[in-house]
C-alpha cells in the first residue's frame, strides 16, 4: 500500500519547468535590475532547487509523514520527554490573526493583547515554580540551563566572588554538563547512591568556595523524588552556592510541591513537555526560567511588566493596565533575538488556562498514577532497580535479561515498534545499565497501558535471535549506523 514513487527524494521527483508557487508580476515601474543591484553582487543563476508542482509536494510530504510514529497516532512513552496529547485548540488559537502574524517589532500599543498573554504566562510560571522572577527568552530547556548559569555568574560577579564550578550528579541529562561548559564553568560530576539518589557524602566532599551551582533534576531522571533535597539545598547554600532545578520532570509535581519551596534558586521549564508545545519532530521548544527575587535583576530580557493606568473617572470602572517591555537593571543581556518562542508559549498559556489550578494538579496526579500503574504491571517481568514506586516515569534495566538471554534494551525498544508502540527512552540515564525509561503521561487510558504491558510480556517471551533483528514491520529495518558515520552522506548530490 505504500506509495514508493512519492517518497523518493524530492530531488528525484524534480522536472525542469515545473513549479509550485507563482508570484504576481511587478506593479512598480520597471527598471533594469542592474540599476538596483550591481551585477557583481548577484548570482549568475538562481539556486539549483528542485522543480515541482504543489500536488507533488503535498503527496511527497504526506506520504513521508506516514513513515513516522507520533503522539496522535501511537502511544509514545519516551521517558524524560513527556509526550502527552497536544490539544487541537492550541493549534487554532496560536494561529489566530493578531497572534500568529504579529511582528516582533510591532509597537507596544499594538501588542497589548500579546503582552497580556506573556505577562500572565510569567505570573503563572512563577506561581507553579514558587520562584517569583521569570524570563521567557530561552528557546528550549538547554538554553534555559545556560541562561540560568549565566544569571548565577553575574550574581556572583556582583558579590565579588569567583566561583568556577558547576556540580551535578551522574544521572544528569547531557545538556546539564554541556550548558555548564558553554557557560565557562568547570564540570564536576558526582556519583549517585546505589539507588540513584544524590549522595550526600559525595556532595559534601565536592562543595567548597569554588562551587557556583549544583544542578539537579527533581524528580530525578530515575523518576524518583530526591527526598533529601532540603538538606542538599542547605549544604549548597552553606557553601555559598546556588541550587538549579532542571524542570524537565515538572509533569510529576505541579501543584503538589514547588522547586522554590524545596530549595531551588533557579529552574527551567520545558513548555513543550509539561505544557504541551507539540514536539514538532525535534522542536521547537520553549525553556523559560524562574529564579529567586535576588536573581531577578540579572535575567535576560525583555520581560513584560504591567502598569496600572490612571483611573478614567467613572467610579467602579474596571482597572485598566498597560503592558510594557523592560530590560532588567543588571541583565546578562539577550540570549536570543526577539522575545522568545512565543508560538509555544501561547500554546502553554492556552493549556494552563484550560486546566486551571485543579486541572494542573490533576495532570500531575494522573501522570503519577499512570506511571505507577504501568510499573506495577511490568515489574515482575522487567526489573526496575529503583523499587515499586515512582513519580511520573520509571527506569527499568534490561541488564539481567541481557545477561541471561542476550536481549538488550535496544532489542526491546525496536520490537515494540512492531507492536505499534513508540519505544521508551533507552540507555539514559547512564547510571542504569541497559536503561529503559518509560513515561506514559496522564493523557493515556488504562487500556493503552494494559496493551503496552502485554506487548512487553510477549516480547520478553520471544526468540532473542528474532529480537536482535527487530523491527520487522517498519518501513526500514535497523540502519547501518557505522557506515553512516564512516562515510557521512549529509546531502543529496546530483549523479555525475
Amino acid at each position, binding site marked *: 500500500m505504500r506509495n514508493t514513487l512519492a517518497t523518493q527524494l524530492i530531488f528525484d521527483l524534480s522536472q525542469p519547468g515545473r513549479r509550485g508557487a507563482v508570484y504576481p508580476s511587478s506593479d512598480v515601474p520597471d527598471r533594469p535590475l542592474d540599476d538596483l543591484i550591481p551585477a557583481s553582487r*548577484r548570482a549568475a543563476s538562481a539556486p539549483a532547487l528542485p522543480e515541482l508542482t504543489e500536488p507533488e509536494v503535498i503527496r511527497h510530504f504526506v506520504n513521508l509523514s506516514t513513515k513516522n*510514529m507520533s503522539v496522535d497516532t501511537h502511544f509514545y512513552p519516551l521517558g524524560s520527554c513527556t509526550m502527552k496529547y497536544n490539544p487541537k485548540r492550541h493549534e487554532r488559537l496560536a494561529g489566530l*490573526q493578531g497572534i500568529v502574524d504579529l*511582528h516582533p517589532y510591532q509597537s507596544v500599543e499594538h*501588542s497589548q493583547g500579546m503582552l497580556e498573554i506573556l505577562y500572565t504566562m510569567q505570573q503563572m510560571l512563577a506561581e507553579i515554580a514558587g520562584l517569583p522572577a521569570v524570563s521567557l527568552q530561552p528557546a528550549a530547556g538547554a538554553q534555559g540551563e545556560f541562561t540560568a548559569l549565566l544569571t548565577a555568574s553575574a550574581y556572583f560577579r556582583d558579590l565579588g566572588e569567583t566561583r568556577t564550578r558547576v556540580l551535578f550528579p551522574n544521572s544528569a541529562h547531557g545538556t546539564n554538563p554541556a550548558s555548564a561548559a558553554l557557560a565557562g564553568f568547570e564540570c564536576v560530576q558526582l556519583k549517585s547512591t546505589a539507588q540513584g539518589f544524590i549522595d550526600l557524602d559525595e556532595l559534601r566532599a565536592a562543595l567548597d568556595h569554588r562551587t557556583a551551582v549544583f544542578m539537579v533534576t527533581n524528580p530525578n531522571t530515575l523518576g524518583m523524588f530526591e527526598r533529601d533535597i532540603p538538606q542538599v539545598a542547605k549544604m549548597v547554600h552553606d557553601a555559598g552556592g546556588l541550587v538549579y532545578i532542571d524542570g524537565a520532570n515538572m509533569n510529576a509535581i505541579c501543584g503538589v510541591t514547588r522547586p522554590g519551596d524545596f530549595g531551588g534558586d533557579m529552574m527551567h521549564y520545558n513548555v513543550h513537555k509539561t505544557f504541551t508545545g507539540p514536539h514538532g519532530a525535534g522542536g521547537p521548544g520553549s525553556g523559560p526560567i524562574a529564579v529567586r527575587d535576588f536573581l531577578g535583576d540579572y535575567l535576560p530580557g525583555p520581560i513584560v511588566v504591567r502598569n496600572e493606568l490612571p483611573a478614567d473617572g467613572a467610579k467602579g470602572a474596571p482597572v485598566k493596565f498597560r503592558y510594557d517591555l523592560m530590560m532588567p537593571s543588571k541583565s546578562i543581556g539577550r540570549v536570543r533575538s526577539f522575545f522568545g518562542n512565543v508560538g509555544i508559549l501561547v500554546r502553554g498559556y492556552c493549556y494552563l488556562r484550560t486546566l486551571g489550578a485543579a486541572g494542573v494538579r490533576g495532570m500531575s496526579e*494522573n501522570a503519577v498514577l499512570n506511571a505507577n500503574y504501568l510499573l506495577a504491571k511490568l515489574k515482575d517481568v522487567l526489573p526496575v532497580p529503583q523499587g515499586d514506586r515512582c513519580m511520573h516515569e520509571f527506569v527499568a534495566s534490561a541488564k539481567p535479561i541481557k545477561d541471561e538471554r542476550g536481549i538488550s534494551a535496544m532489542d526491546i525498544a525496536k520490537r515494540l515498534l512492531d507492536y505499534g508502540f513508540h519505544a521508551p527512552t533507552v540507555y539514559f540515564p547512564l547510571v542504569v545499565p541497559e536503561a529503559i525509561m518509560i513515561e506514559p503521561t496522564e493523557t493515556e487510558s488504562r487500556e493503552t497501558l494494559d496493551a503496552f504491558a502485554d506487548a512487553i510480556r510477549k516480547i520478553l517471551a520471544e526468540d532473542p535471535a528474532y529480537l536482535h533483528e527487530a523491527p520487522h514491520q517498519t518501513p*526500514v529495518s535497523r540502519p*547501518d549506523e557505522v557506515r553512516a558515520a564512516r562515510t557521512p552522506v549529509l546531502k543529496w548530490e546530483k549523479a555525475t
Partner: protein
Amino acid sequence: MAYLYNTPQQQREMLQTIGVDSIDELFDQIPAGLRLGRPLDLPPALTEIELESHLRELGAKNGSPLQRVCFLGGGSYDHFIPAAVDAIASRSEFYTAYTPYQAEASQGTLQAFFEYQSLICQLTGMDVSNASLYEGGTAVSEAVFMAMRATDRHGKVVLLGSVHPEYREVCETYLRQINCELVVVPTPEGVADVAAVRKAVDDQTACLVIQQPNFFGCLEQTQELVAAAHAVGALAVVSFDPISLGLLSRPGEYGADIAVAEGQSLGTPMQYGGPYLGILTCRQEFVRKMPGRLIGETVDRAGRRCYVLNLQAREQHIRREKATSNICTNQGLMALRATVYLSLLGPAGLREAAELCTRKAHYAADRLTSVSGIELAFRAPFFKEFTLRCRHGADRVVAQAGAAGFDLGPGLARFRRAGLDAANEYLVVAVTEKRTRAEIDALVAALR
C-alpha cells in the same frame, strides 16, 4: 477535567493494582513539609468556547498585517507563506513526533530533514547544513564558537557594526564568560570599510562576522571582507537572508567558511519573534565541529536506502561537557516548513520573490525619500530593506504612518547597540513581495 481518560472507577482499580488506597499515597516520597498544601493561585479554568473568545479578544488588541500594512523588518518579515506549507506542518505525524531517535519509526522526519540539509546547501552553495538551531542570533554565536574550535583561537572575534544589534548582543552574552574579546568594527557609512576591517583582524582572530544584506539593509563587499579574514587565517562567518539568495551571490561562492541565517523568511510566520529557524552551514572540513543534529544517509539490513541521526559523537547526550553545543530540542518543525517552502518555490519562485522584494523596496525608497525631511541614510546598494534618516525624528514618521495604518521600523533608537550617532533619526523599512504599489503610495501620501 481536561485531557484525562481514566474514569474514577478505572482510577480506583488502578490504585488497587498498584496496592495503594489513594493517589495521595503515591506522593509519599515527597516529604509532607515540602507539599504546597493549598491550590495553586492560577486564573480560573476556561472551556474551549470561553478560551477561544478570550484569545480572539486578545488577538484583536494586536496589530495584524491583515488590518495594518507591515513594512517592519530587522530580521523578521511578512513574506508570503503558501497554504501547502501549513498543510504539511499541521500533519500530526510530523508535529506531534519528537527527535527521530528511533530511525525505523521516523523515516518521514529523517528524510524530510535530509532534504532540508540538501536544499539549504543548494540555496547557499555551502557543503553541509545541520538540521536547525534555535534562531538567527544563537546561530551567529554557535558559528563563532565553532570558528574558535576550528582555528584553535579563543581570544578574539571581530564583528561588523552592521550586524543585527540583537545578534551582537547575543554574541556578547555568549562570549562574556570565556574572556574572548569581541571587537566591533564601526560602520558609520552603513557598510564596512574594508581597510578598517583589515586593520581590525589579526593572527589571533578566530573569525570575522559579516551580515549580508546587513542590518541596515545594505550590501557589504563580501568578497573583499572574506579575503580580509582569510588573509590572517581567520574564518569568515556570514549571516545571510535566505530570500535574498534568489538573486544575490551565495555565501559558498564568495568563500564563507560558516554561513548562518535567520530562516523565518522560509515559510514560518512572524508570531511575535519565535519559534523561528536557525540555519547553520559550513565547508566540509568543519563538519565534525558543527553544533546540532545532522541527518545522514545509509542503508538498512536489507540494503534499502534510509536515514539516521549521524555523527552524534559531537552532541551533548554522548559527549556531555565536551559536546560542540548544548542544544538538544531544536526547531525541527520550522526546518520542515522551510523544506516545503523551498520545494514549492523552486529556483523560479525564489528568484521571483527576491526580485519583487528588490523592485518594490527600491520603488518605496524612491517615493519615501521624496517626502521632505526623509532621506536614505546610506548610499550602498540594498535588497529588500533600507534605512531612512528622518531629520525631524524617526518617532514622528513612525507615529504618522502608524496613525494611517502603516507599520514601519524598527527605529534604531530601540537598540542599545545600533552604533550610530543620532540613532533616533534612523529607521529601517522592509518591503516584501506582498506589498503593493498602492500600499506604498498610500504610505507616502500619509507622510506628506
